[in-house]
């Protein structure tokens, strides 16, 4: 991990990189009609417009690194993956990949819809450079991993999208590549298969392979990647710790780009209790304070589950607000969303419809915090009902959940407070 997790477009230094991308640029030539292409080839005179998909993209990926690519649709993620995979040429810069690449660039791609799953495993494996004998040796393992034993002789087109994803992933990973490239394919399988895929990805990582994946799910990137790269309009805008990059991505998705300058500096009066704190918004309203009140009414960041606590969010309108929506989110130290809601979903008596400039509002949320002992982060936000954020303060409050004695596994995230019972079953007498 980086000691300083601040997002940075400076290139990270990676030792013995498996993938080196250097100054990569990609222009697509756009022709008004196919005739223009013919004219250009024959006369040598330029007849196209250039569309820049990637511009000066540089990064290295080391062995055992799992890197998530984030960015909006059209940011250049897929173009970048295709160039690294070698199915598209670059206009500028270079890509060096040391080792065998396997890629899942689109669901079921390269698979013939009319052929059976069995035939497709063979064809897919041959495309990846295996021989028939090698595929035959791995065939059972591929089928077992995809859990498609019962369907393997049916045509591929009859598979559900989840089943197609399972077969694609199984084939792509069976070749034991040095670099695995996955474009959104993991989001289709069911939860059980996703877990299995993540396990396989972790296994790859342990064996020093590099994985590059595209996902729109910030949670997914945060939970399986060591590092995230945010692309915007063909450029790397941030490269670093996934949680941080995820926040920036979230901000870019929902924050107003024109008034971005007001983010972070918008009148934050409270001392930041968490160094992961990160704020953005258009600043029409600001969150002046966020704290947790214990059962005795005093501020605390140390929670004993079972007692009743109150989260307090103090808001001040800087301009006239057409509508008000207040929400909060509890995240684990990994950055996984554990719980979040806002006043659209939970009734909040006393919440005004609109607010005048200078008006202040205090929102209190009562909760017993049924969480496992660990460190958590609280995110608070105030927004317009049209989803534009007045202010979002990510991970603005760090708090600990304590427990004196161990009542659950250390890996638990929540405390569901079970009660257990047992009774010994008498063995029936044999006749």
């Amino acid at each position, binding site marked *: 991990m980086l000691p300083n997790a601040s997002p940075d477009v400076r290139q990270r230094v990676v030792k013995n990189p498996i993938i080196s991308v250097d100054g990569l640029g990609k222009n697509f030539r756009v022709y008004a009609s196919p005739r223009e292409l013919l004219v250009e080839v024959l006369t040598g005179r330029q007849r196209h417009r250039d569309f820049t998909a990637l511009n000066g993209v540089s990064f290295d990926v080391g062995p055992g690194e799992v890197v998530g690519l984030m960015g909006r649709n059209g940011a250049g993620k897929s173009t970048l993956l295709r160039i690294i995979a*070698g199915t598209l040429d670059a206009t500028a810069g270079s890509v060096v990949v040391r080792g065998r690449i396997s*890629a899942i660039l689109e669901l079921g791609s390269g698979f013939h819809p009319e052929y059976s799953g069995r035939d497709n495993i063979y064809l897919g494996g041959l495309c990846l450079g295996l021989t028939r004998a090698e595929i035959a040796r791995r065939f059972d393992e591929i089928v077992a991993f995809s859990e498609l034993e019962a369907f393997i002789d049916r045509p591929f087109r009859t598979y559900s999208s989840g089943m197609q994803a399972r077969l694609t992933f199984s084939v792509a990973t069976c070749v034991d590549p040095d670099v695995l490239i996955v474009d959104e394919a993991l989001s289709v399988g069911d939860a059980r298969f996703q877990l299995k895929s993540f396990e396989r990805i972790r296994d790859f990582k342990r064996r020093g392979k590099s994985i590059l994946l595209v996902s729109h799910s910030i949670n997914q990137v945060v939970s399986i990647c060591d590092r995230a790269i945010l692309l915007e309009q063909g450029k790397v805008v941030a490269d670093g710790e996934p949680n941080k990059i995820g926040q920036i991505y979230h901000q870019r998705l929902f924050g107003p780009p024109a008034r971005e300058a007001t983010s972070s500096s918008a009148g934050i009066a409270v001392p930041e209790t968490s160094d992961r704190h990160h704020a953005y918004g258009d600043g029409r309203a600001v969150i002046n304070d966020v704290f947790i009140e214990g059962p005795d009414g005093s501020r605390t960041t140390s929670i004993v589950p079972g007692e009743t606590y109150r989260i307090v969010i103090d808001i001040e309108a800087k301009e006239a607000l057409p509508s008000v929506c207040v929400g909060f989110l509890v995240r684990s130290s990994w950055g996984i969303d554990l719980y979040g809601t806002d006043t659209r979903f939970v009734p909040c008596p006393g919440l005004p419809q609109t607010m005048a400039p200078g008006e202040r509002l205090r929102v209190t949320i009562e909760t017993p915090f049924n969480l496992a002992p660990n460190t958590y982060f609280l995110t608070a936000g105030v927004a317009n009902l049209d989803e534009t954020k007045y202010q979002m303060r990510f991970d603005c409050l760090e708090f600990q959940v304590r427990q004196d004695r161990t009542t659950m596994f250390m890996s638990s995230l929540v405390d569901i407070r079970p009660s257990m019972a047992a009774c010994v079953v008498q063995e029936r007498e044999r006749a």
Partner: protein
Amino acid sequence: MTSILTPLKIFDASANVAAAREFVTILYRYQDLAWEMTRRDVRDRYKGQALGSLWAIGHPLLLMAVYVFAFAFLFRGRLSPEGEWSEYAVYVLAGLAPWIALQEALGRAPTAVLGNANLVKQIIFPSEILPLKVALGATPTLIVGLCVTVALAVATGVGIGVGLLLLPIVVASQTLALVGLVYVLAGIGVFLRDIKDIVSVLLSIGLFLHPILYAPGTAPAALEAAFYASPFSYLIWCYRDALLYGEITRPEAWILAPVLSTAIFVIGYRCFRMLRPMFGNAL
């Protein structure tokens, strides 16, 4: 920007040898894939049709029957005034059988890569295999045609001789030429979809611009001269020597056919290789 065709120096011997070696390397590495795809290509072409793979034999058979009937019986073509119809039929078939195979491969060539956009675009796929399978996919047609020719020659007493031993050389030459031509057309077809229609028209005309249907000396002088411009004419003359005359009647054809075919193959492959990095942009 200069025309994209300039970097291809066709007489650069070392580049040609390097390209050929690269092709052999790829073929060796993906031999299983090439074989599997060719096999499926032939098998699946008539999939879903009632008579299935029978069409692989039936289609060339019917075409040849129509041409032989039209030219040997309706137009009463003969090799010499007192010649047998069967002699003329074998003469025509020796040129027609390879032509039908060529027609089949070249007709499908422009879409060889274009029609498999999902393979080329979405996975790490050796796109060299796609034109190859189209070219090799015409081999069954060629074999059927040659078998029919030989069968007719034997059945009607025209006879077949030691010339048959030369046949492998001609078949190998034709296959090389086909592979090269399919590579060029498949590469261009990705960018210029019109090439499909251009090829289809040229193939229709081509039948009459080659020494296929004309008995010796019956073609107009201008056309006779034009025959020499096409590499495929030399191949046809070689086929005739092997299947009908049983001796080398045109030594120049036996030299030029393999040489030109090899040249077409290497240059065709190099054209394809040059265009290949740009496929991703057009598909």
